């Protein structure tokens, strides 16, 4: 029997680890072959555009110039963005849009989920109706709401005037002060069913026995909600809020179709602004720099999302 010294033993183990890894890969060679096409496609449609966007963000692309004749300007695009008042306006719009839409849609969805969690006649029909905004196309919803808000033919204006609450129909989406809240209402209307479905699923997992224990312990309905139901739904709430936040941060259809960012940038959010810069004004370089910044923000949101998900697993799957 050979006696190995500590060092030799460590060396041997390292060697075997290395060859073990290669052996492992080799033994799965068929699996790698199967995923290879997918990896190639991903590289072409995701990795290359990301690289090209980052590259473009360091160039100036004046309209009228061929894209291949772009002028390298270093970080100029970034500094120009940060100095521009429009950037700050669009950023604040995006923050208001994202936070307000996310939180209100979540609270509203949660409230509906709690209401629908009790058994009552007509629950199924009500649930089906409440899901409609989420399943219809965002484009259709945008046009419907455009008409609802319309200052001449809109139903809201007509009702307000009819009730004597306003002299003439308000200009919901043509006024700088009301356009963003009006769009947020549409967005919440479209999104709260998603929060509702998520929270309804979460509510099914609250153990009945815990609620009964709390009842025996003397907790009233509100205390049972605070001490049992809500703590149990903390993780599913986090995931729902993060998913909503990411979706809202990236929304495009509703603001673009309803207002196109106007009037005077009052309803521009990042995505619509980037789209307008790139495809409206052909300012590819600046639009790319915007995209890179947006990419970094969304990636950090994604990090929290993944962390929230893995947190779930750590707690024995108690969603």
């Amino acid at each position, binding site marked *: 029997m050979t006696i190995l010294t500590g060092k030799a033993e460590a060396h041997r183990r390292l060697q075997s680890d290395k060859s073990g890894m290669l052996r492992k890969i080799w033994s799965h060679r068929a699996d790698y072959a199967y995923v290879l096409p997918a990896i190639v496609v991903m590289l072409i449609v995701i990795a290359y555009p990301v690289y090209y966007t980052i590259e473009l963000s360091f160039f100036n692309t004046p309209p009228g110039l061929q894209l291949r004749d772009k002028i390298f300007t270093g970080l100029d695009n970034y500094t120009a963005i940060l100095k521009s008042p429009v950037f700050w306006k669009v950023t604040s719009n995006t923050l208001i849009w994202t936070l307000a839409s996310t939180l209100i849609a979540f609270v509203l969805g949660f409230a509906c989920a709690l209401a629908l969690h009790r058994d009552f006649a007509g629950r199924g029909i009500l649930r089906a109706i409440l899901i409609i905004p989420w399943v219809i196309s965002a484009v259709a919803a945008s046009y419907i709401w455009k008409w609802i808000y319309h200052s001449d033919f809109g139903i809201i204006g007509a009702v307000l005037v009819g009730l004597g609450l306003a002299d003439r129909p308000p200009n919901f989406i043509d006024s700088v002060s009301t356009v963003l809240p009006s769009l947020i209402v549409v967005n919440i209307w479209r999104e709260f069913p998603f929060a509702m479905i998520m929270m309804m699923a979460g509510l099914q997992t609250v153990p009945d*026995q815990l609620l*009964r224990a709390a*009842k025996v*312990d*003397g907790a009233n309905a509100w205390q049972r909600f605070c001490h049992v139901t809500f*703590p149990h739904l903390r993780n599913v709430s986090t995931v729902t809020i993060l998913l909503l936040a990411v979706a809202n941060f990236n929304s495009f259809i509703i603001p673009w179709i309803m207002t196109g960012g106007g009037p005077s940038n009052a309803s521009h959010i990042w995505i619509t602004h980037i789209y307008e810069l790139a495809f409206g004004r052909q300012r590819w370089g600046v639009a790319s720099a915007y995209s890179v910044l947006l990419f970094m923000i969304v990636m950090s949101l994604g990090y929290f999302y993944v962390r929230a998900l893995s947190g779930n697993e750590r*707690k*024995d799957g108690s969603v």
Partner: protein
Amino acid sequence: MAHVVLKDLVKTYGSFKAVNNVSLTVNDGEFVALVGPSGCGKTTTLNLVAGLIPITSGDIVIGDRVVNDLDPKDRDIAMVFQNYALYPQKSVYKNLAFPLQMRRLPKEEIDRKVREAARVLDMTELLERKPRELSGGQQQRVALGRALVRDPSVFLMDEPLSNLDAKLRVQMRSEIKRFHQDLKATIIYVTHDQLEAVTMADRMAVMNGGYLQQYDSPAQVFAHPVNMFVASFVGSPAMSLVPLEASTANGKSVLTSAEGWSLELSPHNAQKVAKAKTRKIVLGARHSTIKLHKSAVPGSIPAKAYTVEPTGDVTFVQAFLSGALVNISMPPTIAVAPDEQIWLEFDQERMHLFDGETEMALKAH
């Protein structure tokens, strides 16, 4: 502590009667086990006492109050659940403090009571832990503690040991028994495990199909089961029940089998059979009251060994008699092989006889 009285308790779900006219009294400081197979109505009965589900009719008295319409929190009860039902986000300390906080007790008093309960249940060092960091046994002890801090009139326990492994169950069984002895607590304990009921309870209420079958001390239930269900449910291995036919031969009362053999009855047993309204009689015998012989002796019945199960202290032999499987226990020193011819001798003094139609135990008078 207080006594509990259930009077003609009924719970129906649509046309299904989950609890059917159950009446029983639990004395002050008594440990009563509600026992029966799944779906027998025992847990429903407990939930009715707790106030977690409304009763259909009848009365529930705790102490001197009729509590039919009171909320669980106003019934002065504490409950221990099968899955412990600890609040997962709260530490052990906060779990124990929760029922006291809900009663708006002063902070110092809560602290004193929590620490006292932790001391009694020997879990002071666990107070800062979260439930998921505890073993099953520890979690169940916390659940007991949470019931204890309330200082309730009645403890309701819903299969508290079912989620524990066999070894821990035996240990917690004695802990709960000790808990009862020390506190002189009134306890209503639901279990499907007749062994738990027999070993722990002062009295056991055997339920089946929503009906209370028998309510008596474990010894009485074991020795004098009122019907075939109780006879087969209580005791392990279960009592063997052999369907036979009563007849007279040479002026003597006998039970005959379709297999051709017959068993002559003692005068006492003959008297019982004479009172029966039917000729169909079921003979019941516990494994320890049947003697196994390797050769024919007077009064013995021939049979064939079916399986042989040595357990160390005793060896269980199973054999078919009149189509029914019969359990016999014997010292491990006697060797029997499967399919071997054996002879069984019943102890007439400790034999049970049941009416084959009503399934009720036959009585001599």
